[in-house]
């Protein structure tokens, strides 16, 4: 069978009956649009979540020591961290924090104070926006300096340059040496809570806490996802031996992120599958109209058979016609779906979501496949017509 001619006749037959073709395609249009919209929205949210996780910091291992009334392991933990493979570990910092009051002139603000090393910003994924970061010397020399988060800068200093200004942290005077850029976290994921903090050298912890404490929290920043897993294993072993089961927690957000990712993937598959059902309904519509077409064109089929068309040519012709119909519907559906995805994303999630090439590809080829699949029965019926009987039909 000449494919070019089959395609030409397919399009002619679609264009010749625009109204009917459109109604037939409507099922496929709605089906593929629904698949595109639902999957794209889920994927868009998944990407948004991934971005938030990226901002929080990936490959970040949190170590919590919960052991009570036992000896302080903070120095040992620090020493242990020093022995970790530098290939796997980018850096580590104590990560003890406390909620306290900050005062600058007459302004007061409740914030989180982190006691970190010079590697705090690296480990917790903060970018310096002005001034300088805490240095090794600040830590060693007990310098009363701090770097402040974006929200703190906003709340206390407004348009004033905070660098060099003195602030009171729980009554102790600290000099602001730098500011961190805002993480710009989504409200859903904590918003500016992540910017409402200051960091001071961990060696000054007693000055702020003014009581006994244990430096029980650490962050270890790993060089990669696989390094994260390897380091978690090593740290876990050490903690297990040192403080015993149930007295500590070592984890990375990577695990949570993977779990979330998997759950989004499942949701996408589920919704896409449900939307896919409407594609099946669309396919049945195509089968229906193809049966009508075969009946209408019985005489043409008879002529073709009389001049020597083998059965497979007739089958091919009608399959091409059915798949042209469904592919055209698929294309319209994808365009409609892409438009609706942008609109819904903007309306409900205030973000621009767009369909990925993969889902567009899948929607298009599933449409074609359904056209072929549901076209088989009408096409075979056409090919089985007896030429004499087909020619008798007026």
């Amino acid at each position, binding site marked *: 069978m000449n494919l070019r001619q089959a395609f030409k006749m397919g399009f*002619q037959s679609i264009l010749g009956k625009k109204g009917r073709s459109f109604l037939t395609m409507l099922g496929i249009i709605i089906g593929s649009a629904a698949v595109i919209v639902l999957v794209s929205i889920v994927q868009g949210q998944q990407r948004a979540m991934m971005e938030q996780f990226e901002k929080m910091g990936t490959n970040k291992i949190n170590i919590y020591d919960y052991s009570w009334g036992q000896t302080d392991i903070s120095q040992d933990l620090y020493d242990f961290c020093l022995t970790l493979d530098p290939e796997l570990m980018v850096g580590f910092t104590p990560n003890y924090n406390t909620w306290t009051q900050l005062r600058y002139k007459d302004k007061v603000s409740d914030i989180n104070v982190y006691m970190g090393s010079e590697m705090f910003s690296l480990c917790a994924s903060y970018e310096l926006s002005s001034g300088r970061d805490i240095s090794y010397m600040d830590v060693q020399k007990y310098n009363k300096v701090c770097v402040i988060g974006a929200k703190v800068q906003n709340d206390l200093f407004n348009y004033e340059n905070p660098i060099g200004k003195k602030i009171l942290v729980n009554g102790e005077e600290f000099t602001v040496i730098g500011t961190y850029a805002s993480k710009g976290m989504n409200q859903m994921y904590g918003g500016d809570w992540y910017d409402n903090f200051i960091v001071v050298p961990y060696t000054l912890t007693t000055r702020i806490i003014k009581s006994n404490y244990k430096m029980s929290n650490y962050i270890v920043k790993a060089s990669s996802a696989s390094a994260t897993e390897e380091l978690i294993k090593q740290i876990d072993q050490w903690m297990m031996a040192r403080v015993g089961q149930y007295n500590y927690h070592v984890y990375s957000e990577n695990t949570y992120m993977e779990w979330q990712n998997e759950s989004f993937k499942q949701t996408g598959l589920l919704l896409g599958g449900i939307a896919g059902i409407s594609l099946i309904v669309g396919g049945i519509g195509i089968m229906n109209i193809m049966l009508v077409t075969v009946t209408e064109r019985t005489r043409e089929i*008879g*002529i073709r058979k*009389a*001049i*020597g068309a083998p*059965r497979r040519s007739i089958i091919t012709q009608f399959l091409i016609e059915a798949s042209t119909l469904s592919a055209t519907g698929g294309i319209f559906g994808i365009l409609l779906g892409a438009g609706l995805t942008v609109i819904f994303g903007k309306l409900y999630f205030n973000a621009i979501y767009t369909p990925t090439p993969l889902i567009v590809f899948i929607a298009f080829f599933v449409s074609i496949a359904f056209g072929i699949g549901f076209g088989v029965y009408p096409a075979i019926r056409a090919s089985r017509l007896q030429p*004499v009987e087909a020619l008798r039909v007026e």
Partner: protein
Amino acid sequence: MENLIYLNDVYKIYGEGLASEVVALNGVSLTIDSGEFVAIVGSSGSGKTTMMNILGCLDVPTYGDYILNGELVSELSDSELSRIRNREIGFIFQGFNLIPELTAIENVELPLIYAGVRHNRREIAMEALRRVGLEERARHKPSEMSGGQQQRVAIARAITTKPPIILADEPTGNLDSKNGDQVINILRGLHSEGSTVVLITHDNSIARRADRIIRLLDGKIIHDSKFDKGDPFSEEVLHEPAAGI
């Protein structure tokens, strides 16, 4: 001369065994040699069209053998019958039977497509259109042509794969006498070039242009003879037999 068509005691029975059983062909035996020009005549219901459908491999006999160009048609599969319709037979219908969506040249090209011809298809089809004098109308659709022109396109379609046999079922039935003449002249021309032509007609003026006339009545051959114009004995076959014969 070789046997091109050989029918041996062929029956075609519709609804066999039912009360409404119709015997369309009732034991027909017939030989047509290569290069003959045969007219099959008979009143309606005499079995002409059934015979034509069987000769054209559009239908198969209920009983009896049909050997076409050495092949036993009654034993061929669906796809082999398609091949025979495509290569061995050019069919011309009373109602032209062109595909309305396709242009003249596309209609003529169709048998070549089914024959699997890949190269110079347009040229071969154009050659056939030229043979019937319609190359200028190649890009016209059937609806834009007169009946005579449509039938000539149909003839071009029938001859484009150069089949040895041309079967024409009342080819002039829907045409006026001028266009009818033109069609018969083309068929005579094809015959003189070596084609075997079998046509069905109930028009005596058309039948007279044949070399051999076969008359059917009630599914049986009642006359089969050479036709010489002016010979009174030959003219006899052109007259409807009186009831009772």
